[in-house]
């Protein structure tokens, strides 16, 4: 019987100790420090961009490791370039979420006690106290303390017996919610990040010319079609059609003005020059054109794109054994051209001497070996698409955290405890305060106010 009752008590003690250890502020501080250290390492080394996978990821890792010469292989092996998706970071975040969940529960209990408890709440351990002795009776000292604490306090409670008494005051009730909202916000942010990480995805550097489309490999196989670029510079919105599972929507997207379709977000990253090319044979039938860039398209209308680092592109008409080199210049002042211009050179077979060379500003048509080549200046856009199902949680979390932190910083509760013990013709007083900052100064102020009031009111009570 004794053994049976002792075991649950021991188990309770162990569980209580675990609860206190896991929910302690020191544990939160330790986990935050570990996370900060990990992020500092992540800031020191380039990290794997989101959306990269397969061969592209392998290429990126090889290039990045190559930049560190001898240590690159070692850094790659220990995961220095993939720190944020490593089990270490995930473990810290999971532990942080657990600690925050426990702290939310603990803070909810604190708030409940402070709002509903009619009596005096115990002072937190470790709160420094300042002491004094007031002349007069305990009743007079209690009245003084109540009068000193009353202004600015939302609640004042007094408890006493014949020889001892305590006065408790609490101000700024909304501020009590601050820590609860802050920890809840942190928990929601972690939940949002988890949802985005497990279900969400991101696809970047999607370069599209007007009329062209791409189907993303990410879950859902979203099809993105660019209807219109909106001109150069990204100032005007580009028109894009998004299609997924027989549903679709056309959205407008411009620089820093993203488009949204449910949880799918689309942003415009850049615009650049492109050359639209068509070719027809002597029988007026369109010819197939092929871009010679890696993975280049084959089409009757070809868009030659000039991305940020690409000043030169090549395409061909395979059935006629013709190749074309196109160079994009922002201007050619030596030729008297002050605006963007394309240089187009045509080559026959393996001949390295250009068969023709032309400068094109906006549009032009040429005849080459009986082929009519029509070129026109156009623009392409680079898009980024992301599926962010955890965004609402993240927004709620950030707002909750901001509200909580603001309440703590500017409306944080101030609480004061004045303990008294009657000692013959005097009363020994201990004052403790808990507040936002400078608690000892507030304690000192209260003590001085108490002494001054006591000295002034003593004759009245004596009467």
């Amino acid at each position, binding site marked *: 019987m004794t053994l049976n009752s002792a075991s649950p008590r021991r188990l309770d003690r162990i569980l209580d100790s675990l609860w206190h250890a896991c929910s302690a*502020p*020191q544990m939160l*501080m330790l986990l*935050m*420090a570990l*996370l*900060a250290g990990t*992020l*500092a390492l*992540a*800031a020191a080394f380039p*990290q*794997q*961009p*989101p959306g990269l996978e397969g061969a592209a990821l392998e290429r990126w890792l090889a290039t990045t490791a190559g930049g560190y010469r001898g240590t690159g292989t070692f850094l790659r092996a220990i995961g220095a370039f993939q720190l*944020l998706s490593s089990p270490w970071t995930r473990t810290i975040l999971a532990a942080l979420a657990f600690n925050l969940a426990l702290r939310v529960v603990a803070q909810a209990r604190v708030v409940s006690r402070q709002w509903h408890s009619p009596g005096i709440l115990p002072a*937190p351990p*470790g*709160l*420094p106290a300042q002491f004094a002795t007031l002349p007069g009776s305990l009743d007079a000292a209690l009245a003084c303390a109540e009068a000193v604490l009353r202004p600015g306090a939302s609640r004042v409670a007094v408890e006493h017996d014949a020889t001892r008494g305590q006065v408790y005051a609490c101000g700024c009730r909304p501020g009590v919610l601050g820590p609860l909202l802050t920890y809840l916000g942190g928990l929601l942010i972690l939940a*949002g*990040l988890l949802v*985005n990480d497990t279900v969400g995805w*991101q696809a970047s550097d999607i370069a599209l010319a007007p009329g062209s489309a791409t189907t993303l490999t990410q879950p859902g196989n979203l099809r993105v079609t660019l209807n219109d670029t909106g001109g150069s*510079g990204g100032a005007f919105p580009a028109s894009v059609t998004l299609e997924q599972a027989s549903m679709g929507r056309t959205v407008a997207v411009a*620089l*820093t003005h*993203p488009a949204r379709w449910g949880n799918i*977000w689309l*942003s415009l*990253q850049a615009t650049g020059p492109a050359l639209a090319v068509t070719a027809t044979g002597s029988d007026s039938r369109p010819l197939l054109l092929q871009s010679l860039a890696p993975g280049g398209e084959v089409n009757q209308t070809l868009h030659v794109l000039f991305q940020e680092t690409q000043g030169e592109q090549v395409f061909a008409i395979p059935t006629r054994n013709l190749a074309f080199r196109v160079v994009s210049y922002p201007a050619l002042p030596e030729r008297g051209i002050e605006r963007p211009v394309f240089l187009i050179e045509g080559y026959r077979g393996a001949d390295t001497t250009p068969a023709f060379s032309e400068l094109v500003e906006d549009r032009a048509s040429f005849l080459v070996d009986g082929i009519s080549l029509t070129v026109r200046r156009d623009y392409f856009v680079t898009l*980024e*698409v*992301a599926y*962010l199902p955890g*965004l609402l949680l*993240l*927004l709620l979390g*950030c*707002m909750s*955290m*901001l509200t909580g*932190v*603001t309440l*703590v*910083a*500017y409306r*944080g*509760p101030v*609480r004061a405890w004045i303990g008294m013990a009657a000692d013959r013709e005097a009363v020994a007083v201990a004052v403790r305060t*808990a*507040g*936002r*900052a*400078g*608690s*000892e*100064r507030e304690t*000192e*102020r209260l003590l001085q106010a108490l002494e001054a009031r006591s000295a002034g009111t003593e004759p009245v009570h004596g009467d």
Partner: protein
Amino acid sequence: MEIDGLIWLATAALLLVGGALGLVVIRRKRLGLLLVFLAAGLVGILAGLGWRTWQADAWPGTTAAETLGMLAGGALAVTAWVTLRSTAPASPQEHPIPVAAAMIEAGLLVGAGAMLSWRESPVTVPLARSGLFGLCGILMSVGLGGWLPALAASTLWSLGSVLARPHAGLSRPQIASSASDPGRVAALFSFPWLTAVGLVGMMWNLAAHTTVVQIVPGDLWCIIAWLTGGIYLHATSGWRPLPLPPWLATVLAAVTAAAAVLAALSAPTVL
């Protein structure tokens, strides 16, 4: 060197002279003169930032020179707030020395910004024309800049608690606990601004890059500053004092201030 660089160089000199005067000559009861230097420094920083904004036709924050200037401006603004607040009765800070130390820190940052501005001309970045980017910059300058006066006050207080003979103007704490750290006043004021950077920054990242946080040093150092700042505020909590030595709070303030400077230097990477 362009006009902005010259303005910032003069501002740095003004702040350093004002700070040195505060440390050496002015001492107590001459806070008003120190605040004149501080206000002049703030005007100089804003003038330099205004010039660069006009040149680039975009919000400041596209170069490290600008972000250092913004950090120094935020530090001075928070110092002014803490100082004006401390003139009220029963406030924890009433000596000009932490103000002077914060001015010297800000002067060094503005000087570094002036040197960088010599190499970094204003850059026109289309993304930096967004109002969200501008708002993020303002919030960040106060949210991160506040850690410089926090570090100054915490360091001086920590030194005061270590030195056997109190130096004139340094308040010796009655209770040697991290909960009494006077740097908490500035840190507590600026922390909500830094938290707001998280919300506004997330919205800007979403608008510009379709992501909630970018894995670039600019965003990462900002998060690190927020995390270490949060640790500092827990360590100096006046509601539930932790039995921690005073120097630990100063170390945490120093780490946060270092993260703030690194966040400012790497802020242009978010573009």
